[in-house]
């Protein structure tokens, strides 16, 4: 009886741990494509898993990201957005719209990572980033994983989470200790 109890508890705990190591699934649809080169490493839409994310270095001083995008066919009267997925809700962080009267099918540019807002610089961890671009001529959607490099245990959110997990684990222990 006691062995069965222990087995059940260990089973649920193992499920929790294994679930935690599962890579996320993501995808790209439509005629668009794009890439970005950061610190000499080229990333594209295939960097869509937790094991192979786009890595943004912790030390962003002097680092420039070179990006380029194509749509295959001209997409006019377009609009688009980029969102960070938090749970079931995508939080929009950027959006755009235009007519594309020049019928362009590609764009490129550079971005100095030092220009990233301060509150983003303090973030670490893995983020699922979803982008969409649509208009007359096509619709594109894609998801990539972005890793903001840094020590997750020393970040404010990471430290609070670690302490909270330990505290709640102690609570779970007392829940299983039984009433006096």
């Amino acid at each position: 009886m006691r062995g069965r109890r222990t087995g059940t508890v260990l089973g649920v705990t193992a499920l929790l741990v294994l679930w935690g190591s599962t890579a996320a699934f993501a995808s790209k649809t439509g005629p668009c494509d794009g890439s970005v080169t950061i610190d000499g490493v080229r990333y594209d839409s295939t960097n869509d898993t937790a094991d192979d994310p786009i890595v943004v270095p912790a030390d962003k001083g002097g680092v420039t990201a070179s990006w380029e995008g194509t749509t295959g066919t001209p997409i006019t009267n377009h609009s688009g957005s980029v969102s960070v997925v938090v749970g079931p809700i995508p939080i929009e962080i950027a959006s755009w719209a235009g007519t594309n009267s020049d019928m362009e099918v590609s764009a490129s540019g550079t971005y100095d990572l030092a220009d990233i807002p301060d509150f983003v610089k303090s973030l670490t961890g893995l983020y699922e980033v979803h982008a969409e671009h649509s208009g007359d001529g096509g619709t594109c959607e894609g998801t990539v994983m972005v890793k903001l490099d840094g020590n997750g245990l020393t970040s404010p959110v990471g430290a609070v989470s670690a302490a909270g997990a330990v505290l709640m684990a102690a609570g779970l222990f007392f829940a299983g200790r039984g009433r006096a």
Partner: protein
Amino acid sequence: MRGRPVLGVICGFFFGLFVAVLLQQLSIRPLDSVGLIGFPVVGVVLGLVLAAAAPFGRSPR
């Protein structure tokens, strides 16, 4: 049930939530629907199982 199911549910929920955020901070998995909803649910189940299995670590009388 000889354990503390209410304590188990509350602590299990927040344990799962904190673990999900910690895994995201450690770049192990993103804070997607599975992490933000699934982990707390599994934590609640864990809390209930522990409360049902109580007294854990003692010989049953």
